[in-house]
């Protein structure tokens, strides 16, 4: 069973996994009101348990610079999602940095495992990912960072001007390992985890619980 936004964020909090400032809203007025006090640009997402690839269905609006744009974005998303059952509208401060994929899975013979690699919309196409079996030791997490082409972001020059510090990403991997061991999670998919020199945040958690 797929967790909704609130449940997913709650799970992140319990394991100390950082995510950008996020407000879960139910109406247009709610969205606009909650956007006060947030740092623009923000992202608006129409969240639905029925829809996994939000970007492709136009259910995500990035780079919203002010309240006016937010109001417009809301109207567009409300129209595009008119045939879906929505859980919520989600306003989130837009994160920056290199995009990674962090996943959790349950193998029939090895049990809970953690996956790491290049994130973003081409992640499934590139398949630049590697796996370690839980519980991950720090050395295992470090090896994950080095195994795929995602390693380039942790090198001094980075890639296309983007660099990431290893420590916050290692911390995410170790926390996901603990989560996979303790929670009845069938699979989880954090894509992207956005990381820069200071922090790593889970932007779009997708968590499926065991039946």
């Amino acid at each position: 069973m797929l967790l909704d936004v609130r449940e997913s964020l709650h799970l992140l909090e319990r394991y100390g996994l950082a995510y950008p400032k996020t407000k879960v809203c139910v109406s247009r007025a709610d969205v606009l009101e909650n956007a006060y006090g947030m740092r623009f640009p923000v992202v608006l997402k129409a969240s639905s348990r029925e829809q996994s690839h939000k970007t492709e269905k136009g259910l995500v609006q990035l780079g919203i610079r002010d309240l006016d744009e937010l109001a417009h974005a809301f109207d567009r998303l409300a129209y595009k999602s008119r045939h879906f059952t929505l859980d919520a509208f989600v306003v989130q401060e837009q994160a920056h940095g290199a995009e990674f994929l962090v996943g959790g899975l349950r193998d029939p013979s090895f049990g809970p495992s953690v996956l790491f690699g290049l994130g973003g919309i081409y992640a499934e196409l590139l398949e630049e990912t590697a796996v370690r079996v839980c519980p991950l030791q720090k050395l295992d997490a470090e090896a994950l960072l080095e195994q795929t082409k995602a390693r380039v972001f942790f090198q001094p020059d980075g890639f296309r001007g983007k660099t990431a510090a290893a420590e916050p990403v290692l911390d995410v991997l170790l926390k996901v390992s603990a989560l996979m061991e303790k929670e009845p999670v069938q699979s989880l998919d954090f894509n992207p985890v956005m990381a820069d020199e200071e922090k790593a945040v889970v932007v779009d958690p997708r968590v499926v619980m065991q039946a």
Partner: protein
Amino acid sequence: MTSSLSWFFSPRSVAVIGASRDPAKVGHGVLKNLLSGGVFYARSAKPFSGKVYPINPAAKKILGKVCYASVLDVPGPVDLAVVCVPAAAVLDVVRQCVQKKVKSCVLISAGFSETGKGDLQQGILAEAKKGGLRILGPNSLGLIRPAARLNASFGLTTPRPGSVAFISQSGALADSVIDWALEEDYAFSAMVSVGNQADVGFAELIRFFADDPQTNVISLYVEGLSDGRAFMDALRHAAKKKKPVVVLHGGKTRTGQLAASTHTASLASSAAVFEGALRQCGARTADTLTDLFAISSALSCCRPCANRWAVLTNAGGVGVLLSDYADRYGVQLLELPESLVQTLDDSGRLPSTWSRRNPLDIIGDATAERYEAALEALLKDPSIAGLIVAQTLQTMTEPVKNAKLLVACKKRFPKKPILAVFLGGKYSHDAMRFLNRHGVPQFNEPLQAVKAARALSTSD
């Protein structure tokens, strides 16, 4: 005996239950292998030195040996029973083995969980447990322990005794490996076909061979595992015992997994999880069957070394290919120290056109004498940890002389692995054989030598 598995590999007596007079039957091949070491001739095939009891209620004698109607009629104790009766008769046979206090049992019989008859397999296992009888299989092709002159399988013959333990989830594959081993001169401490792993599985066997003084390298062909965690613990144990484990994983793709599920009835792990688990436990992976044995054999006769390699060649092209592969597989080719270049220049034993860099190219017309000068200098240089020596065949090339040279170098510099890439066929054959026979791993493909170098390298 410390492990209950010891009874499989050093029994004093073996019963063949379902021994047959018919040479087309498994029960005939197994008996003949025990009595002679191999149905097919090989110098390494020797008769089992312990007692062998054929069991067949309908025969008096098979292959000159007196038959017994059941294992219960055997006069002395039975340490190992090899069972080749139809699946439906196995339960009774196992009951008799328990009653006879047989220690270990190879179930060659097939038709259990791999064909959906898991209940029958469970029943047999429960029966065996009552008497502490250990079971290899069912659906196993048996086991071979060359140093104990034990061929309890229907594999064609016995390979040379060596230090590689090969454990295979495909039995028939292991059998072709035997034929191949005779040709390539691979040698084994044991060959084991695990079959359905109803009782004895990979994890326990890895632990056994990690503790086995005859074994230096553990080589696996794996399709699936029921308990990945126990497997990982066993790999860690082998790492602690400094016994390298090399793994070829079959069933990585959906199509391959489908084939594997009907083959040995095991759960298919995602290839990525399996690979991650191997890396986590310090095991090496092989991409192909030939890689599996090439790497295992290199690990069995060379000491691991730092990742600082030099290439010596008489062909520019082979040097280029080796450099490409080294780059791709993370094998570090050192820049030649200036002092070394100077030494070689001063020696006057190399032609003026030699490459003066790594790969060290001593040009197509190189004789053994030229190889000797370069080898000497390279092996004496402390910065170089390992050597890949390539040879292509020209009219003046001296393959056997070069091979002898490499073997002599190996003796003088035992800490530095030397990998040979003598490329060729008919006229290189004797040299290749000499190299393999004398512990210098020889590869007829540059890529394989680089993969072996990677497996031998201890650090980046």
